[in-house]
């Protein structure tokens, strides 16, 4: 039995009155209240939550519950974490209930982001499961009078080599509430894996293909009310007035909520809420101010005050650059565009608030909502429930904040806030505009002698870690100001993520200019700065390879010291058929590689593109990729993420740019912000998973974004003899470049 969403929901509703007492340490993200672990660090998130029963519980019936602070975003993490625990405990995955991010029940693992779930949570759970297994074996040893070496765990029992057995339930009866994890655990030998490393059927898919309860949008607690928001039409808009009274008298309306410029309506039935929202919006009068960039966006950004961060600076005087190249790569704003607009439920009762949300970080959200409502954090309970794919910081937290505000206005009723498509499109925080200015030179032998990079970007993270990053809080009568953002330090980085080329280069200078002022709302979009930086680096490497007269794949191999990087490059090239590729008229091939953050997953992508000469339309005909994420827990899950990343990145790269006028965002729906449809999908995508048993988990979800963009640009250059550097590479830009 697995934790289905309805179980989570039901349990949470029943436990509403607050009686779930959990005895484990809730160390905050910053590790302030950290207890001394004395010596080596604990694996992954165990460092923050070192008690074993924070992660693994065994019930009297032998049933195992695993707790993770991470959230299922559709990336398959639920299945992968279940597999890890099952493997170490020696039970079938079906025997595990996995509880995901819940401020009352699970450890605080911050955000499910950065492709860190396997590294942080997977590592912790694997170790904790192994340690629980060993603990149970020790107890069995005492109980049976048999040496531990003669015992092993199988199917929920500890079994002795003489056949005697004791069930997990018996062994765990007295609990292990005070047992702390140790730095080293007796992990199973990867060669003996029976679950991990096999492609697993995702536990959430059956409900999703049969209309089961699967998403926060599907929750229907008794007494639930529906709500819709009237969002401000632009960032600086202020509500002058709205005919609250008239709308309150409309059929089915329970309450109209107004707090400063926060405006919304609560009804019993859903479509009544939509009708009332439209009526309320029609009566609302706003004062607006133009505030959006006009003219040349990139010139405007470069004119803003910036903080200079030097990320690399080394010079080997011996390197002699002969041919020098310069190129500037740019991208405007791009959106998450989650297919299901954000949704949240909230219930305010007995001075406590429960929020069901698809936020990527329930603990930071809890703190932010508590601050917004002036409640102590302990009185706010945030539970993650799946939403549609978020691809980063979208409007999930804002919907949750609105739900909290409306719930407070109608206490003792669960309130469901559903954002409309136009609201999600216009109010969500986008991936920021970026500029990457590269220059470099090749020496006499064609090698890269020198590399200089200068990048400009806003913050790539304005996640709620405070009410000031909850959008509705900006519009309250007593508003919270958005805090001045700070850069994410390297080696992770934000706008400078992946800005340091991984290639062996004797002279290297990489500088980032962090621009705090954000004329357009921005935050983390899948792979953060890596998408543009890898696009730039991998396009530039091709330009250098061309200058050196070298094959693009061979050129990369030549400059890559890391064996695993070379393996991935060779695997993708082989899969694609790079050697012996015959170019059809109007077709071209392109290659790109990156190691995410220069420390996480390795991913190489090769594409074949066809260019329609008369229209400039580029289509990715096929793609081949190779991914090395370390130990592959669920190879099919990896493949799924890379296939998806390639297609999503292709859509960003060929089509996507947020549009706006002086005051408002004008990308309001799919007609004004088109994304890839079936007609654009390649004929085939081949993904090779390079499994590294025993190696650390490197994450997968963001690895394909950057390489795909550059591979496409390189293929267009190969097909049409034109080098495009401003994303997206639209058909109009391509046609203008290739001419008649």
């Amino acid at each position, binding site marked *: 039995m697995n934790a289905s969403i309805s179980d989570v929901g039901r349990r949470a509703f029943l436990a509403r009155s607050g009686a779930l007492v959990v005895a484990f340490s809730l160390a905050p993200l910053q590790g302030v209240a950290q207890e001394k672990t004395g010596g080596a660090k604990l694996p992954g998130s165990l460092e923050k939550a070192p008690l074993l029963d924070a992660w693994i519980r065994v019930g009297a019936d032998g049933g195992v519950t695993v707790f993770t602070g991470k959230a299922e975003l559709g990336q398959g993490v639920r299945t992968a974490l279940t597999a890890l625990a099952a493997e170490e405990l020696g039970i079938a995955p079906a025997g595990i209930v996995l509880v995901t991010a819940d401020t009352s029940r699970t450890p605080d693992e911050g955000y499910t982001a950065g492709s860190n779930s396997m590294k942080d949570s997977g590592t912790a759970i694997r170790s904790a499961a192994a340690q629980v297994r060993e603990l149970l074996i020790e107890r069995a040893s005492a109980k049976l009078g048999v040496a531990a070496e003669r015992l092993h765990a199988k199917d929920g029992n500890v079994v002795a080599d003489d056949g005697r057995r004791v069930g997990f339930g018996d062994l765990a009866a007295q609990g292990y509430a005070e047992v702390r994890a140790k730095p080293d655990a007796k992990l199973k030998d990867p060669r003996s894996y029976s679950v991990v490393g096999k492609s697993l059927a995702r536990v959430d898919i059956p409900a999703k293909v049969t209309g089961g309860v699967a998403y926060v949008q599907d929750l229907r607690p008794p007494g639930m009310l529906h709500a819709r928001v009237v*969002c401000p039409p632009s960032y600086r808009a202020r509500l002058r007035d709205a005919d609250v009274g008239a709308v309150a008298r*409309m*059929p089915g309306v329970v309450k109209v909520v107004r707090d400063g410029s926060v405006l919304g309506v609560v009804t019993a039935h859903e479509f009544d809420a939509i009708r009332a*929202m439209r009526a309320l919006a029609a009566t609302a009068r706003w004062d607006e101010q133009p505030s959006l960039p006009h003219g040349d966006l990139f010139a405007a950004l470069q004119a803003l005050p910036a903080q200079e961060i030097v990320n690399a600076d080394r010079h080997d005087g011996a390197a002699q650059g002969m041919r020098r190249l310069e190129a500037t790569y740019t991208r405007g704003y791009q959106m998450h565009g989650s297919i299901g607009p954000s949704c949240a439920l909230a219930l305010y009762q007995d001075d406590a608030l429960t929020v069901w949300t698809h936020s990527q970080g329930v603990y930071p959200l809890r703190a932010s909502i508590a601050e917004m409502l002036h409640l102590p954090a302990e009185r706010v309970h945030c539970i993650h429930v799946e939403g549609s794919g978020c691809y980063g910081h979208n409007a999930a937290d804002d919907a949750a904040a609105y739900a909290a505000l409306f719930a407070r206005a109608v206490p003792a009723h669960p309130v469901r806030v559903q954002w*409309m498509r*136009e609201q999600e499109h216009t109010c969500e925080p986008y991936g920021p505009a970026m500029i990457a200015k590269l220059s470099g030179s090749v020496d006499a032998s064609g090698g890269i002698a020198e590399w200089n990079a200068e990048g400009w970007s806003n913050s790539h993270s304005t996640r709620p870690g405070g009410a000031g990053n909850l959008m509705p809080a900006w519009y309250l009568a007593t508003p919270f100001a958005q805090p001045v953002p700070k850069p994410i330090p390297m080696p992770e980085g934000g706008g400078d993520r992946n800005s340091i080329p991984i290639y062996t280069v004797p002279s290297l200078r990489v500088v980032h200019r962090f621009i705090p002022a954000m004329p357009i709302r921005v935050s983390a979009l899948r792979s953060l700065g890596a998408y543009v930086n890898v696009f730039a680096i991998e396009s530039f490497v091709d330009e250098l390879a061309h200058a050196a007269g070298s094959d693009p794949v061979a050129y990369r191999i030549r400059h890559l010291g890391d064996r695993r990087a070379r393996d991935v490059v060779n695997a993708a090239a082989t899969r694609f058929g790079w050697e012996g590729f015959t170019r059809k008229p109007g077709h071209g091939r392109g290659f790109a590689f990156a190691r995410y953050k220069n420390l996480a997953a390795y991913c190489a992508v090769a594409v074949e593109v066809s260019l329609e000469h008369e229209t400039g339309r580029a289509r990715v005909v096929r793609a081949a990729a190779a991914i090395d994420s370390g130990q592959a827990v669920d190879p099919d899950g990896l493949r799924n993420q890379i296939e998806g990343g390639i297609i999503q990145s292709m859509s960003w790269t060929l089509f996507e740019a947020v549009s706006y006028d002086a005051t408002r965002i004008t990308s*309001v729906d799919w007609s004004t912000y088109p994304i890839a449809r079936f007609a*654009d999908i390649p004929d085939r995508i081949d993904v090779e998973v390079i499994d590294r048993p025993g190696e650390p988990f490197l994450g997968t979800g963001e690895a394909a974004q950057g390489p795909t963009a550059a591979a496409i640009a390189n293929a267009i250059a190969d097909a049409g003899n034109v080098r495009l550097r401003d994303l997206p590479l639209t058909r109009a830009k391509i046609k203008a470049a290739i001419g008649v």
Partner: protein
Amino acid sequence: MIDLRAVRCLSMLALVGAALLGCAESPTTTAQTAAERTFDRAQVAKGAELSALGDCRVCHTGDGGRAFAGGRPLPTPFGTIYSTNITPDAETGIGRWSRDDFRRAMHEGIDRAGRHLYPAFPYDHFTHVTDDDVDALYAFIMTREAVSARTPRNRLVFPANLRPVLAAWNWLYLDARRFTPDPAQSAEWNRGAYLVEGLAHCGACHTPRNIAGAEKRGEPFGGGDAEGWHAPGLLAASPAPVEWTADALFRYLRNGFDAEHGLAAGPMAPVVDELATVPEAEVHAIVTYLTSRTGQTRNAPANERIAAAEQREFDAVGRHAPDRASEASASSAETQDAGEVIFAGACATCHYAGAGTPRTTPVPLALTTSVNAPTPQNALRVVVEGLHPASGEPGAIMPGFGSALTHAQIVAVVEYVRARFSDRPRWTDVNATLHGIEREQPK
């Protein structure tokens, strides 16, 4: 749809024509292929622009096919004609055509083999194009990618399927003359006249045709049909409630959209896509020429007109407005027009969702040409088929309602829209017109 009188008329003409003119024109003998020729780059670039103005690629490219390789079916009153492969392919395209062959096709409607071309290829307009411009088009066409693609056979009714009949048709209707400028008019006007009457062939769709399928010279731009769509009368003949000023017409032709008239749909959509790629001066010239033929009418200022039209939409769904709440609960489903209820549930989300909500704003229905047109043809097409932009390109998305609504429901909502949003007399032929559209759909 076959016009029997046209058939009879043409049969008689065929006999006369065949007697007078002989059975065929002479073929040419040049065998040089495209690959053997070289062209001046400036001439090719000029040809590209002219080709955009003439929409060559639009007709000569099949659905999902390669550019200029033909195969697009064009429905006419005489049956279906397929556009030909005009890539430089030697076997299946026009790769062997000489410059003179090309000129003869453009000016006289006769191909290299000496056969008559059907005036679905508007040579009766291209005949006005200068030799230099035709040569530039030739240079452009001959430098396109050669594609091997056989043109499907035409499916025409007797006697239209007999090419010699066209000799008679030309004798009656083809005025094979190069354009001569009017010295009393400005250079811009003359340029516009040259383009409109020549390459842009606006009258080919927008001028009504006689029983023989020739444009009625006495009713230029009075409204016509093209590929199952109504091509509305232009300017003074336009059914739109708002006058077509030069600015509005420029915006529409250049951007495919004008806030007081609507967006280009059906066969006009690719035309405005092409006009977006030519120099603005050319579009201004077209506008100058066309607007010179309009009468002057006075209208209220733009904002007032738009506001009034939006108010009509608001009223249409306004029973849900706060001050009309009591009205909404009092009225029952039966007393409400079925079309009105359909409109409120299916259309209002996009066509009126309440001011102040961010949304793409379709032009208010009351101002659109299709809602005010003499025929429901275009409104029905859009409702049934929807609007679908090119992949990856921004553009209006409207779902087709042909599956969601029954025949009777489509009739109800379209009749409701006409009654609610237009001051013109109601359409009486919605049902029959819809049957005509449905007969085309594959079952």
